[in-house]
């Protein structure tokens, strides 16, 4: 118990001392996970929309694939990216193994199916008659997609939250393809693992607290956007 209490105390000292190494780790974590989520949104949202709003023969099969992807073990994504980017691998020539770029690619593989899957579920919840209504008002195909995405924007934000939560907390894949190189590819999760291995529990606790705070800030921001419909600021904050 003493160990935990001491760890928490040291964590707060570390957080508020403005440690440059910790700051660097935080910024890299936000950069890698932020870019990965943005790229995943660019893939996942249109894919989710197209599958959700159209009927085709193998729709169930495609949805099953996406649902499987949502549960993709991060180590599998890490292994796949490692195999691709390894020096002797198909994409080894570009030389990005053990770089933040490789970590972003691995995180995109993890987050895209999550965002596609949740978006798909979100648009399927939208009243299908709204599509008919939009068409009857003279909307073209793009306008129909846009208006239905706007209808599904609240659950679609949940997709982004789920995607961000999936990648910021992930350790296996980024460890594999990033290598946890100090000052280059070390992020909050990999740094936590390393410090636990070294017995530096105070640092590990500090890193986890920071990770939780980051996740909380990002999610509170997305939640506020999601819940702002028909609510006052006061209601938004306290609901």
């Amino acid at each position, binding site marked *: 118990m003493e160990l935990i209490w001491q760890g928490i105390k040291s964590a707060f000292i570390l957080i508020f001392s403005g440690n440059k190494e910790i700051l660097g780790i935080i910024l890299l974590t936000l950069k890698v996970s932020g870019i990965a989520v943005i790229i995943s949104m660019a893939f996942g949202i249109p894919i989710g929309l197209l599958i959700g709003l159209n009927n085709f023969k193998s729709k169930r099969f495609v949805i099953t694939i996406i649902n499987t992807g949502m549960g993709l073990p991060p180590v599998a994504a890490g292994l796949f990216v490692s195999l691709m980017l390894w020096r002797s691998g198909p994409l080894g020539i570009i030389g990005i193994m053990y770089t933040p770029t490789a970590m972003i690619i691995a995180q995109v593989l993890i987050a895209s199916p999550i965002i596609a899957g949740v978006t798909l579920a979100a648009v399927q919840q939208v*009243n299908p008659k709204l599509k008919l*209504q939009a068409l009857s008002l003279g909307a073209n195909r793009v306008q129909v997609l846009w208006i239905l995405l706007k209808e599904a924007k609240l659950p679609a934000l949940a997709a982004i939250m789920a995607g961000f939560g999936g990648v910021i907390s992930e350790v296996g894949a980024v460890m594999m393809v990033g290598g946890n190189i100090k000052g280059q590819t070390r992020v909050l999760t990999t740094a936590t693992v390393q410090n636990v291995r070294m017995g530096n529990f105070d640092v590990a606790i500090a890193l986890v607290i920071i990770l939780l705070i980051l996740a909380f800030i990002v999610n509170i921001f997305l939640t506020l956007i999601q819940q702002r419909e028909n609510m006052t600021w006061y209601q938004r904050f306290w609901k």
Partner: protein
Amino acid sequence: MVSKILEIIGLEKKYNSGFYLKVDHLVTEENRILVLIGPNGSGKSTLIRIINLLESPDSGSIYFNDKLITGNGVDKIMLRKEMSTVFQEPLLFNMSVYNNILMGLEFRGKKISGSKEIFDYLIDKLKIKNLLKRNPRSLSGGEQQRVALARALILEPKLLLLDEPLANIDQLSREELRNDLFDILRATGRSTIYVTHDRNEAMIIADFLAVINEGRIEQFGLKDEVFRKPASEFIAKFVGVETLVEGIVTECKDNVCRIKIDGSKNDIFAVSASSGQGTKVTVAIRPEDVILYNIEMNPGASSAMNSFMGEITEIQDLGIFKKVEMDCGFKLISFVTQNSIERLGLEPGKKVLSSIKASSVHILAGRALNADR
């Protein structure tokens, strides 16, 4: 000269469920209101979706402004922009009422400035001026449908399609919205196809009436013609005929036929130019055409050819009217007001005299139509 805005010829559409829509011929004239009336599941909404090009027919032709709009190579989006539809559900989007109203204009790349006059007129007539900033989710069903109507009407479509717009609204709001909507339709003179299963709505607003049942148009014509001269028993019942009796034509002279009613000593006189002697017919009488007299008050002579003595068997309250059911050797039904009930002292068991003009008795030609199907 009145021109056609829409003409449907030989349209057919089959569904896997077994439902089969078949419209041989249907026409809508410009600036007129065609009411499509029929029971639930008769194909009214399906026909609206096909007219709005949201579904394609298997065969047949639809002409819109004399241009064929069915088949390949048709720019459906452009054509839909000439129409606008209000469905049974308001189907509003998750944005302010103001933005919802402007949605169709936005799809057309138009700005509110070009439609300011009609916008102001509609929000005033539909009483939604104070709702513009609200989200539709916070509105009642009636208010939502008012917004949906404004969204369709602001587009000033060449053809307005209203698919049971009042069906999902509570009674009180429905009557108020009905009056507002019908005022707008009369004032704007917009070409409209109005779908309903409510004959009162049809009676108030229709210029033309098409009765649809089980995917077929059973009768199409001017409203009065369909109401006064229904082509079949089904249509007669649907348009509010309460008395249907069978009999045989025994005599026809000067376009007035005498019909011997089955199982009764009474004869009915009906104006008819086409019924032959000895023909088995069904006679239809609208309840509002049956006039009742208190026999103790000496009604005196009348020009009505049909007079029947009968005994009141039941009086039902229908709100505005009371439905008086009598046994005159056949079941005869009359609608009267509460005032008449009190003035004549009508009650079950009381003997009354009823009279009906021969011109108000319609001989159905519908049995042959039914047999054809």
